């Protein structure tokens, strides 16, 4: 075997390693965005999820001002970490409504006591029906709704600190 031939494995290895390294740096985007983006909200009416806070009707979201709709659940660990970010958005004047998916009032109250309550209204979606109608496939997800009740953007997975400026800018542009 000539030396050139014996170098082939090393060249192939470098090729494969660079491909794997590229994928590590730039993870695959497996999230499939909802077909509902750019369409008006579906009609729904959800009962209150906890005592002392009103439920959510799709008309509540058509207020002439853009707002956020957060899909979450007390049993969802990433949702707890997202709480801080939503609180921060709330502090900066963003209006947020929530849909609690497959939740119970007790578990939800405990969750809100622990992680804070940034929501104006929380609807209880016991069977994930509204979640599915919105084209959301998991928790947490956050929809940006414009003043006319049209879905403008969907965030799949928990919002993090780096999302805050982007969300604020989007809401500002829609005003």
């Amino acid at each position, binding site marked *: 075997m000539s030396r050139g031939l014996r170098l082939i494995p090393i060249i192939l*290895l470098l090729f494969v390693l660079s491909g794997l390294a590229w994928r590590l740096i730039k*993870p695959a985007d497996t999230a499939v965005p909802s077909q509902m983006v750019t369409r008006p909200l579906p009609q729904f009416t959800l009962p209150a999820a906890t005592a002392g806070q009103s439920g959510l009707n799709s008309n509540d979201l058509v207020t002439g001002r853009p707002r956020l709709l957060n899909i979450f659940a007390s049993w969802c660990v990433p949702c707890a970490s997202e709480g801080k970010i939503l609180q921060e958005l709330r502090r900066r004047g963003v209006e947020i409504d929530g849909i609690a998916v497959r939740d119970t009032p007790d578990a939800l109250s405990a969750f809100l006591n622990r992680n804070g309550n940034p929501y104006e209204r929380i609807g209880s979606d016991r069977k994930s029906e509204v979640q599915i109608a919105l084209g959301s496939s998991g928790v947490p997800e956050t929809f940006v709704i414009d003043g006319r009740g049209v879905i403008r953007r969907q965030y799949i997975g928990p919002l993090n600190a780096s999302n805050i400026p982007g969300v604020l800018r989007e809401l500002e542009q829609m005003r």
Partner: protein
Amino acid sequence: MIAETGLAALWLAAGLAAYQVFLMVLALRSSVEVARPMRGVAVAQGMLTLIAFAMLLLVFARSDMSVSLVFANSNSAKPFIYKVAGAWGNHEGSMLMWVTILAIAGAFVAFFSRRTGERTLAAALGSQAILALGFYAFLLFASNPFARLFPAPPDGQGLNPLLQDPGLAFHPPTLYLGYVGLSVAFSFAVGALLTGEVDARLARAMRPWVLGAWILLTLGITAGSYWAYYELGWGGYWFWDPVENASLMPWLAATALLHSINVLAARGALKAWTMMLAVIAFSMSMVGTFLVRSGILTSVHAFAIDPERGTFLLALLAIYVGAAFILFAWRGASLKEGAPFELVSRESGLVVNNLLLSVILGIVFLGTLYPLFVEALTAEKLSVGAPYFNAVAGPLALVLALLVGIGPLLSWRRERRPVLRQLKVPALVCVGALVITVIVAPGIGILPRAGFTVAGFLLAASALPLANRNPFRAPLATWGMVVAHFGIAVALAGMAANAAFSSERLAIAQLGEALSVGPWQVELVSVTPTAGKNWTAIEGELRASRGSGSITLTPETRYYSDPPTETNESAIETFWDGQLYTVIGKQDPSGAWQLRLWWKPFVTLIWAGGALIAFGGALALLGRLLPFLRRRRHPEWRRGYA
């Protein structure tokens, strides 16, 4: 204290591994006799990792929630066996298990290996220590399994319910043992390339490790395939999923190595190629571990993507495999090829076997990583699925299975006897199988029909190596080969039957409604809620009958609470001629239930074949080890080699 003891043992083991590397350099650079201390240190290193792993098992068994890993992966409500299995059902624990098995394998080599020269053994144990050092660094600096939480939380977060299955207790350890067995072959190859002692003695020292690793990989793949079959509830036994391919690739390389190593052991030929394969087989294990643990490929076996862990594993992969390839390019030229052989001979048969296996390996490798490379170069997203693999690898596998029937009949160096004459019976069986499938099932696809034909040929041909001699005086290794090759034919027949004759029925059924699938009438009798230790479920009662008598099946859909997940527990009934496979899904608004029913004729042959292949390997391993164990009792032999 338990966790701290484990961590201390891990640090000490890492220190000893570093000392082994120092001893290796000493052995290679001077003529200092290091074999004796090297053996001792390797054994001590193995003991220390065993202590560390035992400590991890202990904190999991006691549900010590102050250990962060236990908190994240266990729950006090879990059944005990899954508490213990939870120790390796997560990233840190599985890495500790990896390095434990690696170090214990090193200890076994140090304790038992008398076949190679002392310098090669020292170099091999040194490279084994280098492998271990990478994983020690990984554990100690990037993913400490013994990290504490303060204050200790009251209870843990649980374990993915898909993994709460007896399969979990044995599947990963089996594959890891297989991977680590290949690491020993890798270390021997690197050691021999360093000292230049690539010869038949080396092949004989490597062979039991390769054989043992190959048996475990075969078992691991067979069991994993059955797990996916009954737990995922999709009725398939192989999905060409990246994680499945990650375990298939080392198996293909190990199978090639297993055959070429025999040429090296018997004839002293194929030196460079065998060393290359030893490196590739372990590289594939590393690639497999990387693909699974980094989670970079989309898979049904979803693990979280973690760039930091992925980077570490990728760096280790680059260093180990890159260094071995460079060593190969540098020292490979100095290897003198052994005895020559002619075109028609056992050697050339094994070369063809190796070529076909390597091509199939290349196809699987390419198909697994192709989407990644296309996206890197063109930003276009695509996926490569079963149609590609079946169409490209399938025919090659059939050609290989056909040659499996012929190769063992050839003699070493050159073939003078008329081999084809021996193949009369297999040829008849083969034609018979073809005729029967044409008459019984004229409509089946070309690949299943070819599968039946080749399986028929191999069923008969695999026994021929025992036919011309007294079978009871044949060596155990020959028996092993015959059983393993027979197992290939059995598995192939099962795959062909499954592809050709499975019936599937997806339907919505009201209570009392009967559905037909294949020869079966299945009635939905009732649906009742039930509960287990950490789950609730709805359980369907199905009554199935064909002709006389009926049986009851109870598939479930389970809802686990910690973390909330839903799984389908299929109910499978096995008969001599196939399996009835049933899954119950959700209730639709009208009150009817989703049912998925399959009748899969002779599907069990697939796993029976896999088990036979592994059993054949075990016979061969026993055949290789028995004389060695017997000889160890004779002191003059020990003085001669030790």
